[in-house]
């Protein structure tokens, strides 16, 4: 929980949104076809998590590629899967319920407007 949230606060920014650039953008294009595809895939995976958990964009050091992964509860990405965490989306209900109630999909859709791609690129 501590690991995940410590990353999360930096993954977000009031000046966030848009798309990444540079090496990260290139790898997204290579591994997902387009930023849009990546976006859709990560959103779908994240919304579909049963119960509490996190959706992640992670970096696979072995294959040198980007992966999308879902973790249950507060299972931290790297110790659990080996992927280096780049961008996480918290879908525990406490992350969105007061504002979005049961509509997790809207929260996940809107969060892209505050993603801090500078931070994500730095992690990459």
């Amino acid at each position: 929980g501590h690991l995940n949230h410590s990353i999360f606060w930096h993954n977000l920014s009031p000046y966030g949104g848009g798309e990444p650039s540079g090496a990260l953008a290139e790898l997204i294009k290579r591994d997902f076809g387009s930023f849009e595809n990546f976006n859709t895939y990560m959103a779908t995976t994240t919304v579909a998590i049963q119960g509490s958990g996190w959706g992640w964009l992670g970096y696979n050091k072995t294959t040198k590629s980007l992966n999308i992964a879902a973790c249950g509860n507060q299972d931290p990405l790297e110790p659990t899967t080996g992927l280096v965490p780049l961008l996480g989306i918290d879908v525990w209900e406490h992350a969105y319920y007061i504002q979005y109630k049961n509509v997790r999909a809207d929260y996940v859709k809107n969060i892209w407007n505050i993603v801090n791609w500078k931070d994500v690129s730095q992690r990459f």
Partner: protein
Amino acid sequence: MFANIARVLAQSSNKCLPLIRAKHSLPDLPYDFNALEPVISAEIMQVHHQKHHATYVNNLNVAEEKLFEAKQRGSVSDQIALTSALKFNGGGHINHSIFWTILCQNGSSEPGGELAEAIKRDFGSYQRMVDLLVATSTGIQGSGWGWLGYNKQLNRLEIAACANQDPLQATTGLHPLFGIDVWEHAYYLQYKNARPDYVKSIFKIANWRKVEELFGKARHD
């Protein structure tokens, strides 16, 4: 309603093929949304019943439809792929259907009859059982349910925790008697992160008459 139509059609045809497969439907709440205040707010009851439980019902119907089709096609792989959706949505439907009935406006203070005796025998006292159920439910990591259940093989009451929407009986064999939903959606709008306050308060609206009935059925069926 659909089950009745299916029955009539089946009886009226030699081939006995129901044209409409019975679908699950959202059970009505046995009380108004505000009936459980101040323990559980009307807002929570409305969203919990009309959105969360309704979605489990809808998605269960979708999953069962897909399962039927996969079976017709003879695809074992596709049937297996549906097990997660069946457990999650089926469990959600089962759990919430029980939940609405074991809560009531003026909860009787303590269980009576055979259930009271069994609680005393298996836990020492009602308060000890409550303490154990509170601790178990509060301690669940992530989403899940705390349960007082009946172990029919050993003829004893047990406390158990289930993750997510895993249904108690299918998962553990225990007959569900009294369950506490500790998914954040069950309390967050009112209690925010104070899950222990919600769990402790829920005993004020426990419908022990219903729980006694469930116990009786589990013991004697």
